[in-house]
């Protein structure tokens, strides 16, 4: 598939749009269907498309496996630590009204909280999907390598 020129060209155009769409879902989630999870999947889908066409190796050059792993943890921690922050500010866990001090209205504080945690969700989902995809697809090539190696033995 990596040799198919037409696909490459289409992908080159398509992938930015997919990413844009993902970001739109991510940050427009309060107004229309969508949110962190869907955005994460879409962004990951963009990357997967890239990896399908340019090869997994190229995909991993864009974002290395280690980075995915850490970002996945980071996303979950962003979510959790937002809650901790609200406790430190004197509220209950995940009580976004606690951020009111930084904003004009309580609603704004809530929206800030929602956007932050949704970002955490999106980050984790996107990286986890990429990570799982990486492992499953790479398994095949690793396996082929082993088979070849043992045949040569």
């Amino acid at each position: 598939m990596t040799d198919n020129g037409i696909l490459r060209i289409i992908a080159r155009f398509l992938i930015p749009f997919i990413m844009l769409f993902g970001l739109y879902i991510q940050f427009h989630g309060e107004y229309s269907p969508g949110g962190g999870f869907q955005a994460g999947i879409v962004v990951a889908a963009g990357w997967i498309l890239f990896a399908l066409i340019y090869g997994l190796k190229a995909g991993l050059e864009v974002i290395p496996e280690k980075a995915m792993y850490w970002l996945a943890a980071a996303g979950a921690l962003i979510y959790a630590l937002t809650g901790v922050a609200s406790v430190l500010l004197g509220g209950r866990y995940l009580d976004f009204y606690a951020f009111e001090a930084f904003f004009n209205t309580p609603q704004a504080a809530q929206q800030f909280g929602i956007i932050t945690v949704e970002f955490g969700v999106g980050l984790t989902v996107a990286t986890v999907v990429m990570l799982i995809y990486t492992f499953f697809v790479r398994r095949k090539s690793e396996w082929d390598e082993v088979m070849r190696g043992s045949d040569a033995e």
Partner: protein
Amino acid sequence: MIDIGLLLFLLVVAIAIVKVRDLFAAAMLFAIYSLLSAALFAVLDAGDVALTEAAVGAGFSTILVLAVLALARRYEHPTGGHNLLALFVVGVTGAALIYATLDLPEFGAADNPAQIHVGPHYIEQSYPDMGVPNMVAAVLASYRSIDTMGEVFVIFAAALGVYALLSVKPRRRQFVLPRRPRSGKARDEDDES
């Protein structure tokens, strides 16, 4: 009505998934099933769910199944006849479910318990409370935020699990029953995790 047709269609696809022995075909059918149920969700006013089901069921899950099929046999072993015990268990469960539906509230009625308790609060209060028009997002990320946090950790756990399982390098010798290792070297390598 559209959902009668959709439901029947779902039924057909589901039976086909169970019946078909070619796992590749089953995976494709499963993607169709997911898309159909996504359509059903959309009909039932659940836009967010529809989007997610389509992305996950028809996209991600299918890719994973295909990746597994690249490593394993594509065709399922035939199972000899019907599994009577399984049929019995399923029959009992189904009967219990049907028994339960006899008293369930009318589908779609506006005065169902689910529609008059708690639910309206979200519909009415989410905008005043947080100025977010998408009630699903409001409930998801604020009213029931801890659930969603749990969800994030579930998916993170899945990633860690897959990482732990599949970052172990595959070894040739695992195919055979490890009764008599062929050479000392192979034996050393066989040890895992």
